[in-house]
């Protein structure tokens, strides 16, 4: 049974840890049986979106098990819109990624609304860093943009209850639970709130976080065999149109 990791990164992080290069991603994937990883460049997330996306393309070109997210910076929206199209045209990028901390923009801001418009027009899934109660705005923001599909990266972080209810309210919102602090019961809570298993995705935050952390969350969620297949790969394959 394959595994698709929908939330990973390539490159350096400014912390005391060894995140390595794209080959480090592949070594970790081999260790844990992850077949395919959807990655954004840490450089693009933290520092320079366009330069980081370009560097990532070079890494993707020779590594078929990695597919890219083009990072969109809501503060450079015209530049990012052009860059997103350029990245998608390579065929090696399959989605967009927007962080909120580094650009300092949250859902609810005009800059983020414009960024959502850009991704909706591109027609690819958006992996959004979510870490706070602003997730409650997402159903309305997504409903207003036909075709936009958003993965709530980290499933809201500390606001995982609010994220669960947001996802239950909009069938184009998906939850992905990677996080260092693995609060117990998040997945069960989301399911009780009404999020179907078809909208739960597996992500790791590698190589910032070791994949075994998210695998442990999956183990403790006690999925059935069929549910496990959906969460670990079928849901992602369908969302991204991947022929796995």
């Amino acid at each position: 049974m394959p595994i698709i990791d929908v939330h990973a990164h390539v490159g350096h992080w400014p912390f005391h840890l060894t995140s390595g290069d794209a080959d480090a991603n592949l070594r970790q994937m081999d260790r844990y049986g992850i077949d395919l990883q959807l990655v954004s460049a840490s450089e693009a997330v933290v520092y320079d979106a366009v330069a980081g996306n370009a560097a990532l393309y070079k890494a993707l070109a020779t590594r078929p098990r990695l597919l890219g997210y083009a990072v969109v910076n809501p503060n450079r929206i015209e530049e990012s819109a052009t860059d997103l199209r350029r990245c998608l045209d390579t065929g090696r990028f399959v989605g967009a990624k927007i962080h909120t901390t580094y650009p300092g923009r949250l859902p609810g801001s005009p800059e983020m609304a414009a960024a959502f418009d850009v991704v909706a027009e591109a027609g690819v899934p958006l992996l959004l860093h979510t870490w706070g109660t602003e997730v409650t705005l997402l159903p309305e923001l997504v409903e207003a943009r036909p075709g936009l599909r958003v993965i709530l990266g980290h499933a809201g972080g500390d606001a995982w209850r609010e994220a669960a209810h947001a996802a239950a309210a909009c069938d184009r919102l998906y939850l992905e639970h990677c996080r260092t602090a693995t609060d117990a019961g998040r997945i069960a809570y989301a399911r009780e709130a009404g999020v179907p298993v078809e909208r739960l995705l597996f992500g790791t935050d590698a190589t910032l976080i070791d994949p075994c952390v998210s695998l442990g969350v999956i183990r403790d969620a006690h999925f059935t065999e069929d549910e496990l297949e959906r969460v670990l790969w079928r849901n992602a394959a369908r969302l991204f149109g991947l022929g796995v």
Partner: protein
Amino acid sequence: MSGYAWLRPTAEEYVGWDVDVLYGPWPRHHRDTDLAEVRARLAGSPVAGALALSTRGPLFDDAGGNAETLRDLAGCPELRPVGTVDVRDALTAEARLDDLAAAGVRFLRLFTVDQGAEPDFPGYRRVVRLAVERGMVLLHDGDPRRFGPPLTGRGADVVFLDLHAYVLADFLLLARDEPGFRATTRMLSGPDSIERVVGSVGARHLVFGSRTPFMDISPQTLKLRYADISADDRAAIATRNVEELLA
């Protein structure tokens, strides 16, 4: 069932002592977990024993909570009681600590985050001084970058319960000079966070702490299993370091 190797625990996930276990109501959480459920959760995991306390102590009544912990855990051979003192009422700390010492309690857990204490607060400093004078082991929440410096130079045994991988470098700087400083592996989530501690200051500076029932256990035991360290270092982190503190 599927053939995923990580789906089933192995011997490398065995933990003799988990230093971070609580039971009882916690109003911010969506449900409460009583002692029976906590014991069941541990029994279904690779964790064999734990240092535990009732949430009554940190959230409502330290003396009453300590009494409850001692009473409840008397019938639980796999659990050892942890005491607490509310740093918001440090004038009563001496009596509380004497009560705990008389009951044979060796571990004192501090809840500075929930009790709103800063490292330079007089009440916090008094509790720490009295506890260290009595030779107690501090199970300490909060950011080690802020609470570590005032604890240095005292010969204190401290286990930091909230060390995050992002601030590991600061902890290692502290631990170089403080043989009694330890941290749990709970949030050492980087791909080589545990290895960096073992390689720089040694496995004696790490212990296992899951924060059951508020956190999943498997992510923590899997980190131990997959850490690129020796079996001896793994056993020290999972069991032996805490046994030495219990002795």
